[in-house]
């Protein structure tokens, strides 16, 4: 039989007609449409039951408790710990997306020397050579950790200098440390007992101190009332977030906050509104009015308002001796509701800027904020987890990432009571990363072990029998059967809070009223975040909305 073209055409017609009586077109339609919705480059979320673990955040010194949801061994969600008495479940905005930070495009995964890839061995030799050749400084951004003891031990044994980079909140407390002869690391603010807070530009509701501590306190006692239990007076040139929510807002010219503090002190003394005896500020009200741009009446009004409801506490965002002197005058030093000395007195570490020394090399710990640029020609060995860009570092050394390192979190700088958190590592340390403590231990294996140092700290706390450990329920330390049981709870994310500070435990003496120094600008929310990069989702705040300004110096 000859197969003609007609046969083919009719045969094809038959096949086509028949196909519609088979599942083929209908199933293909359905399957292809499913296929178009599942492109391989669209990621799928992990499966699997979600486990919840608790730890502490290590991205800044605030020591927030974290509840981390884990699936398939990776963190998939972060929230605060509502039973944590310090943070009361709050976190900073960036903390909620911090679990994505370890995959940030700017994550450091290899050693870099002047921009070129290098090896850890080369870095180690270079550092050992530098130590042999001349003075070396080790800069710690968060003193008081177990890892800090390793850095300190290395410094002591190898004749290098251990220095610290103080945060702006710590710097704000230095005048009291000097005048009172106490370590700055033992000072804090008793916000919980005060009735009036006068903030000279400190962003109390937007990135100051521990998130949650003041925001919760303010929400409970100050928000939404024209006659609140806690009065917040914000003194700031522009209407910041804190100023917009404050009970009263005064706007002196930028940089004149110190003059205003001195002028207010003068009014308080002249009108006998306070009983403390201090040297008279060398300022006149007319001069102060001219410098601040506020009228003399406003300055008087502010002074009266400040002392209407006591105790009153003045807070500056950075070092400001005039504001500190004002606190002394207001009786806000060493008393409830004021600047207080916590129970744990520790030796005062030396800030890096203190010696202005010429170093051969500087080793900068990963806890030091990226904005810290040592003014030195030294060879800089910079440990960091993320590349902050534009760094002067000669060596960029990749540190373990977020939740990758077992470490501890000492008391936050502004805290009223001592606290201690153990930040357990919830994921394994990334390959190719070495922490500063591990790096120095490779050079000198006799250095203390970080984990043992954490264990000793827990034993120390246990022996004091002071304070309580807050897990789901608070347990006083003296009720624990052993230090190990207490440590186990801390390792699971509980927080130890020491006792409230004792009143009258420290005093400040002023020989003369401090000269007004130009005040540092208040830090904004971007600057208080110590990691140099933002979680990628933070772009929602400035790129995909107009809520905040894009951070100037950070390249997220």
């Amino acid at each position, binding site marked *: 039989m000859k197969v003609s073209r*007609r*046969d083919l055409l*009719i*045969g*094809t*017609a*038959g*096949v*086509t*007609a*028949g*196909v519609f*009586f*088979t*599942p*083929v077109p209908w*199933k*293909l339609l*359905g*399957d*292809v449409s*499913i*296929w178009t919705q*599942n492109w391989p480059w669209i990621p*799928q*979320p992990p*499966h*699997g*039951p*979600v486990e919840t673990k608790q730890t502490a955040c290590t991205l800044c010194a605030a020591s927030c408790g974290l509840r981390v949801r884990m699936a*398939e061994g990776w963190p998939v969600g972060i929230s605060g710990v509502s039973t944590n008495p310090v943070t009361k479940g709050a976190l900073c905005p960036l903390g909620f997306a911090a679990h994505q930070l370890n995959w940030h495009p700017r994550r450091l995964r290899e050693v870099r020397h002047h921009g070129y890839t290098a090896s850890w061995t080369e870095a180690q030799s270079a550092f050992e050579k530098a130590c042999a050749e001349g003075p070396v400084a080790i800069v710690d951004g968060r003193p008081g950790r177990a890892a800090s003891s390793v850095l300190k031990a290395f410094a002591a044994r190898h004749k290098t200098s251990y220095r610290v980079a103080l945060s702006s909140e710590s710097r704000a407390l230095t005048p009291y440390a000097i005048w009172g002869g106490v370590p700055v690391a033992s000072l804090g603010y008793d916000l919980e007992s005060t009735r009036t807070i006068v903030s000279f530009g400190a962003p109390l509701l937007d990135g100051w101190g521990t998130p949650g501590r003041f925001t919760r306190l303010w929400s409970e006692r100050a928000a939404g009332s024209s006659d609140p239990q806690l009065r917040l007076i914000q003194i700031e040139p522009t209407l910041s977030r804190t100023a917009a929510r404050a009970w009263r807002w005064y706007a002196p010219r930028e940089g004149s906050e110190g003059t205003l503090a001195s002028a207010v002190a003068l009014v308080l003394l002249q009108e006998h509104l306070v009983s403390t005896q201090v040297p008279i500020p060398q300022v006149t009200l007319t001069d102060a009015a001219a410098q601040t741009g506020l009228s003399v009446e406003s300055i008087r009004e502010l002074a009266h308002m400040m002392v209407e409801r006591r105790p009153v506490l003045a807070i500056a965002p950075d070092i400001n001796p005039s504001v500190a002197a004002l606190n002394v005058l207001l009786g806000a030093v060493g008393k409830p509701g004021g600047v207080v000395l916590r129970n744990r007195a520790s030796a005062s570490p030396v800030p890096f800027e203190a010696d202005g020394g010429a170093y051969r090399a500087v080793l900068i710990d990963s806890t030091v904020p990226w904005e810290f640029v040592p003014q030195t020609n030294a060879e800089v060995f910079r440990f960091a987890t993320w590349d902050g860009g534009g760094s002067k570092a000669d060596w960029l050394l990749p540190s373990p990432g977020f939740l990758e390192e077992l470490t501890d979190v000492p008391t936050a700088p502004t805290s009223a009571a001592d606290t201690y958190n153990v930040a357990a590592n919830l994921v394994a340390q990334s390959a190719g990363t070495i922490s500063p403590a591990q790096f120095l231990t490779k050079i000198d294996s006799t250095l203390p072990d970080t984990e043992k140092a954490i264990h000793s700290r827990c034993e120390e706390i246990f022996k004091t029998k002071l304070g309580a450990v807050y897990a789901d329920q608070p347990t006083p330390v003296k009720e624990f059967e052993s230090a190990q049981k207490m440590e186990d709870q801390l390792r699971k994310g509980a927080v130890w809070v020491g006792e409230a500070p004792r009143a009258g435990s420290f005093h400040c003496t002023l020989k003369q009223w401090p000269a007004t120094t130009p005040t540092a600008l208040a830090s904004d929310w971007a600057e208080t975040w110590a990691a140099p990069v933002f979680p990628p989702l933070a772009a929602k705040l400035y790129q995909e909305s107009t809520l905040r300004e894009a951070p100037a110096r950070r390249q997220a």
Partner: protein
Amino acid sequence: MRRNLLVFLLGFGIALIAGWAVFPRALYVRHSQPLDFFHKTHAEKSGLAQCDSCHVIGSDGQYSGIPRTEVCAGCHSDKLGTSADEAVLVDSYVKPSKQTPWLVYSRQPANVWFSHAIHTRRAGLACTECHGHYGETDQTRIYEQNRISGYSRDIWGHSISRLRRAPGDGMKMTDCESCHRRHKVEVGCLGCHQ
């Protein structure tokens, strides 16, 4: 004319045969599980007689799915017997602490939320209603995957026409809906989607 008709019917017949016999086989690609697992043997030998001895619903309601390697390692931290499959489990997954890449027959798309806790505890459904009597056999079924959509054959059901199905064969949305209709349980879209 007759010849044309015959040719047409020939084409028609070829299409029917290709569509009904060849297509269902060609549409699916067959994969083996990483190792064979014998449910019946485990139930008899180790007293894990209930489904939920290993397929656990946690106290917070989450379903564990196919147990993680840690559960198997509870007994199989080292080789208990001489089977090649157990050797694969212990050497490739238990010792290196890796998860066995089981192919899940009933895996639904990411936007589907099915709660084992609600269906077994609140609705009182038995596991066999949807999963059949697989757990009472020593069979390790071949995993058949739809080449185009990527999903398991169990979702559409074994029968390409979806007629004459075994109970529990087929886990598409219409199957969920028909069971809900039978039991008069009304849920909104987000009751099953996420």
